[in-house]
């Protein structure tokens, strides 16, 4: 039941006192006339309403969550305590510098750690999410070329396996997108890349390991091809959890990157956000960075680059998310960071190996932090699709892998266990995957009808898009 349907006129919580100064009223010209329809409930009813909504949601604590490309690792509690400190939550963004030395220290400290992990010179925390980071990074590339009078560079090269945000961000930044195909090995087709590379190329966007979970061995050659043609290399940090502490994007030849603090650095996803997508770059791009950069040792100050592309957002980014990520990196430290990624890779390989006799792996070789299965054969044989298997998992309290991505794999399921899952949890999930495979052969119908145990069954998404109902309609 919607909260509006529970509302009764006249019920309320009592949060505010009465006014202690003379009440000022507005002229009719500016006075609201249309009625407000906010919910009216007592506090107890309200509290039950949100308890009910929480029960109908599935978080990381509710079970295995191997959602590929999303790095659904455990969100540590200490991060939440740190982000809840009054000394962070109750600070106005425009307070005098000497009263925000702690906030500046947070930015400065995490910047130095993440730059070391990424192999970058400086970093801005202003971007609020991965896609926002991509857009920021691409504007840096655009500004760079512009600063050199090299304005003919209008193309951004994106592999066909890339996250959908890559081409969308490139378009937003005013570039045209050129897709470079993947070879049969799932990696960038070098020859095709060479063909595309030219003096109209502004840059390349790549994630490595890529979205099929493979580390592109030719990475140094790839970045060299781009550099040689005068372009810059952008690293999509969505998959950094595979290699942090082992390989640095900067050392692979990338000039600008974004990281996803809400994936790699353990901050919660919040049902879709807030995230944080800090953008780091090599020294020659620093002058174009947006937002503040923190300088100084004892007395910290915030400075702005004068050739900056400009602000990407009000203030300095999703600060409380940054606080959480700092607590995480402080906790793991120099050994813990590579330990996390190594175990992420071990877990993915373990699961892949325990499934590959049944399920067809899109690329049957050592994977990094995730792997992609193709259910094309299964579908052909049984009619059971990737979607059906995914929905079948829901009845076992397992969040499904990412479905139908990357686009280059037919009937794809992309599995990312992360390092915070135990062997038992994976063994349990492996058993479920195997059981579903069996069920596909024996009783395909039951999987077409899955899930059965959830608050609702499969939804009519076509109907939703065709006749959009995007809000509750009040009677008056």
């Amino acid at each position, binding site marked *: 039941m919607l909260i509006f349907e529970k509302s009764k006129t006249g019920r*309320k919580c009592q*949060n*505010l006192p009465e006014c202690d*100064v003379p009440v*000022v009223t507005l002229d009719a*010209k500016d006075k609201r*006339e249309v009625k*407000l*329809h*906010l919910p*009216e409930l007592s*506090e107890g009813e*309200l509290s039950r309403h949100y308890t009910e909504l929480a029960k*109908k949601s*599935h978080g990381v604590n509710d079970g295995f969550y191997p959602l590929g490309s999303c790095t659904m690792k*455990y969100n540590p509690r*200490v991060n939440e305590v740190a982000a809840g*400190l009054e*000394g*962070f939550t109750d600070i*106005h*963004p425009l*307070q005098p510098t000497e009263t925000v*030395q*702690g*906030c500046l220290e947070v930015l400065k400290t995490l910047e130095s750690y993440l730059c070391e992990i990424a192999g970058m010179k400086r970093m801005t925390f202003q971007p609020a999410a991965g*896609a926002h980071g991509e857009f920021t990074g691409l504007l840096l590339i655009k500004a760079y070329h512009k600063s050199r009078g090299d304005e003919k560079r209008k193309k951004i090269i994106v592999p066909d396996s890339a996250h*959908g945000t890559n081409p*969308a961000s490139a378009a937003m930044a005013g570039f*045209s997108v050129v897709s470079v195909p993947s070879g049969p090995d799932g990696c960038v087709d070098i020859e095709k890349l060479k063909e595309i590379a030219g003096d109209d190329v502004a840059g390349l966007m790549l994630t490595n390991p890529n979205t099929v979970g493979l580390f592109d061995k030719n*990475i*140094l050659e790839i970045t060299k091809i781009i550099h040689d043609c005068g372009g810059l290399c952008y690293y999509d940090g969505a998959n950094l959890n595979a290699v942090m502490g*082992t390989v640095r994007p900067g*050392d692979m030849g990338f000039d600008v990157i974004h990281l996803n603090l*809400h994936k790699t650095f353990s901050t919660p*996803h*919040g*049902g*879709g*956000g*807030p995230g944080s997508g800090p953008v780091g770059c090599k020294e020659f791009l620093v002058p174009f960075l947006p937002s503040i950069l923190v300088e100084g040792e004892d007395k910290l100050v915030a400075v702005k680059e004068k050739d900056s592309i400009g602000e990407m957002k*009000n*203030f300095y980014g999703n600060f409380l998310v940054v*606080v959480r990520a700092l607590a995480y*990196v402080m*906790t793991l430290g*120099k050994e813990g960071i*590579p330990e996390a990624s*190594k175990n992420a*890779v071990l877990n993915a*390989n373990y699961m892949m190996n325990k499934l590959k006799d049944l399920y067809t792996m899109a690329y049957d070789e050592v994977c990094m932090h995730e792997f992609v299965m193709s259910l094309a054969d299964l579908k052909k044989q049984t009619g059971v699709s990737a979607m059906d298997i995914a929905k079948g998992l829901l009845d076992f309290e397992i*969040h499904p892998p990412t479905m139908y991505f990357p686009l280059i794999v037919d009937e794809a399921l992309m599995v990312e266990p992360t390092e915070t899952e135990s062997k038992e949890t994976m063994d349990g999930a492996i058993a479920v995957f195997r059981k579903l495979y069996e069920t596909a052969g024996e009783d395909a119908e039951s999987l077409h009808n899955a899930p059965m145990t959830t*608050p609702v*069954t*499969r939804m009519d998404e076509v109907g*939703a*898009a065709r006749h959009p*109902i*995007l809000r509750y309609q*009040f009677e008056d």
Partner: protein
Amino acid sequence: MGSYVPNTLDERKAMLNEIGYESIDDLFRHIPEQVKIQGGLDIPEGMSEMEVLKKMKEIAKKNKVFPTIFRGAGAYRHYIPAMVNNVISKENLQTAYTPYQAEISQGILQSIFEYQTMMADLTGMDVSNASVYDGATAAAEAVAMCADRKRKKAFVSATVMPSVLEVIKTYCFGNELEIEVIPEKDGVTDIDYLKEHIDKQVACVLIQHPNYYGSLEDAQTIGEVAHEAGAKYVMSVNPISLGALKTPREYGADVAVGDGQPLGLPIAFGGPYLGFMTCVESMMRKLPGRVVGETEDYNGKKGYVLTLQAREQHIRREKASSNICSNQALCALAVGVYLSCMGNEGVTKAAEQSMSKAHYMAEKLAGAGFKVENKQNFFHEFVTVSDTPSEKVLKALEDEDILGGYPLDDKRILWCCTEMNTKEEIDKAVSILKEV
């Protein structure tokens, strides 16, 4: 060193054995040696939870928490009901991903649907998206959604919050739309200038209301000017003000945007906040970002799903209406809880009290020699001019643990009041300023 890896060394070895590897490093063997880090990361060793928390508390203590705040300028300290934190701390809501799997995400989807309804109702519009990053990016996205092949220019008033204007410009550096700033006249948008310069190339006119200086614009007229030229009318509004002020829809706007922070989010050194975007029905399919819609499941049971995904990047890729993917969902949840706790009466009260206290303070400050510069009526912010240097004024307040208004320059200060500022606090601040 802290670690969140459950598997012990023995278990890792056992797993490797099972899959035929000797060591984890073998799994990385195919990575070219020359790109591997030599000698480990140059960051400090990990710490125990006790040490991390101690350290974080020490860092937080280096910030000064002002018990009294008269500063707004884009970040507003309103009362946040205890329920808000309680709800957004629930792990099933806090740690979930974007609700792609509708069957196990009805709670989150419903909360967004409720948020959309409330924001549409608050702004008087037909539809709302599920949030964007903040008020500035909402404004920039609104400009983009109004543009089309023929109309590639936007008029933005000089009286919008400066960083919002900057963000619009940055986005337009990307999408190559042209921005023209409508100059300020007497603290509000210069309508004559707009009338004179607007033409058929203009995609939209964007103003902020109340504007950066707290003043009410002649919002009705500006909308009429925009529409006469065939342009869309975008209003950036403070959502709390809508408890008292006309809705953007009533003023004639096609798109309403703003920062939802005043609705239950802490000032938190600038984030996370959230941007809201609502619009008239005809522009629904141009609205960027996630949207949740009502539908039915296979058994005919009502439920909610992410919808209109055809606009989005994972389907449309470079043809998407925007690149937004992660948004500020948990902040939208907080807004939903806030608005539900406050209800119609509470939001009206917050608006009225904020405005009333600002007017009370303005009057008192005027009495203390700080001339109020706003020529029009203002909401909960206003600008004073004084010969006493702003720095000196603010220092005197800071010494008494009061964060004064935001210094616009050496003489002008932008003040803000909310329902959190008691008469006693205001009187105290003014009495301090009488001594400066």
